[in-house]
């Protein structure tokens, strides 16, 4: 819990309630950054009385930066291909570097050709087989068990986490990302 202390000259510092710690309003101070983190996490609950306007603004700016960073990372993660689906080949028609003289226009025409711009990647196996050993009979032969490919499990989990971040991102942050 924090409170504001204003001295006789009108200068402010932040006091950590129940401690002997007084924190200057200096963004380079480590404790000051902790105050911002607590405001982001706990809101007005971490302050006795109103949060000073300048502190709230600093906390909002810090949160905005954090959200933009998280959104950028999550978006990049989601653009990666899905392991269970694989990636389709993409062919685009691009200038081949050759030209042909056009007698009608009396100019050199660029010759186009098809190029693979994105290579295909096969999906990984949907399942893998693992051996399960009996805990009761250590001499027994292991049995085979079919499970989802752990690579797919991990990929799905990471994509879900990234999607959750994207879904929770406020519009102003998305606008900043797109600008």
């Amino acid at each position, binding site marked *: 819990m924090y409170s504001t202390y204003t001295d006789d000259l009108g200068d402010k510092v932040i006091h950590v309630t129940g401690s*002997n710690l*007084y*924190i*200057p309003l200096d963004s380079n*101070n480590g404790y000051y950054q902790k105050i911002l983190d607590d405001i982001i996490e706990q809101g007005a609950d971490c302050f006795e009385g109103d949060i000073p306007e300048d502190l709230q603004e600093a906390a909002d700016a810090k949160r905005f930066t954090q959200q933009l960073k998280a959104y950028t990372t999550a978006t990049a993660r989601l653009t990666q291909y899905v392991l269970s689906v694989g990636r389709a080949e993409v062919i685009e028609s691009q200038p081949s570097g050759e030209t042909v003289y056009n007698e009608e226009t009396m100019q050199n025409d660029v010759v186009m050709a098809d190029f693979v711009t994105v290579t295909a990647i096969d999906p990984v196996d949907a399942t893998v087989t693992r051996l399960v050993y009996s805990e009761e009979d250590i001499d027994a032969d292991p049995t085979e068990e079919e499970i989802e490919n752990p690579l797919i499990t991990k990929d799905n989990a990471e994509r879900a986490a990234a999607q959750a971040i994207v879904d929770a991102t406020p519009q102003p942050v998305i606008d900043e990302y797109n600008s």
Partner: protein
Amino acid sequence: MALKFIKPEINFREKLAELDKPSGIAGEAMLRAETPQEQFNLIGAGRHRINHNGAMNIWQRGTSFSSVSAPAYHTDRHQTYVSNTATGRSTISRSTDAPSGFGYSYKLEVTTSDTSLAAGAEYGLYHYFEGQDLQGIKKGMPDALPLTFSFWVKSSLTGKFVVELMDNDNSNRHCNRPYYINSANTWEYKTITFPSDTTGVLANDNGNSFHFNFWHGGGSGFSGSSLQENWGALNQAGRADGQVNVYGTNGATWQVTGVQLEVGKVATPFEHRSYGEELHLCQRYLYYVGLQGVNYKYMPCAGTIYTTNNAYTMWKYPRTMRAVPALNYSDATDFQTVSGGAVRNTTAITLSGSSFTDSAVVIFVASGADQGHGVLIRSDENTDVFISFDAEF
């Protein structure tokens, strides 16, 4: 006239034998050095230790701390890290048990074990750097330099341990390398060379740009993929893979001293500095005024009773601090104002907002003090009085 030439005999066998003469380890290292900088380092020319308090000589806050449960500084410049989901507790102390050539070591002794680490549990020993102090490593540049880390370590546990370098300016890029403690309760000297990183320039300012971290234990969130031994984007699962959980054993100990981070691929002998010089370096991050064994000790400040009861005192730090520091003290009633022919006990102490990186105004409240008098501040008869200015990360 006949001239007689005397030709010295050359024993080719001896000459060839001289070519086989071993040059010694240092000589070979010199020959193998790839850059003049490495040769410069090898002969110990210039200052090469980047980190502070590597010999664990400076303990301004005290020399023993029990039941450490949250990130906190004990020995100067080193933060014992205990994350909020970590349930292990330890005693941190300055130990005189140290390898030859060192007076002290940092000692961690587990007092409450954490045998079932939460996924996000993290234990370690951090040392943070200002970006402006690391411009010389050229991080993020095409000619970025490698770094070599060396230290003495001793633990009751053996096995794989991890040291981490992390770039806090560039989305926490990191490079983690293992070291192995082979014999329990034995001082071992370790050297680890970290490759250069041509990605991510460090900010040239006083912010927290970079750190090293000795891991002491990490939950499942910090393992699972192989240790990220080359510089790359943040990969939490590759930060502490295989790391021994020091906190997994009650009574386990881990000690370190002679810590040196330097530019180049070669670990050179530890650069010892005088106590005074090392203290001075540490005081950029913490200025701690204790009693030094004296009751009623006058504090290094002077001031005036600016308004009734409120003594405004000016404190000049020994050196410019990294940031405007936070004020901390033992207790508001631990001090006395000496003013106008009277001594009064203080009832409150606060930092003024008119404080900077080179000086602070601290306000001592003492009932009955008359406005306009000059004032001195002294401690009372208590023995654990302190006042500190903290600009650590």
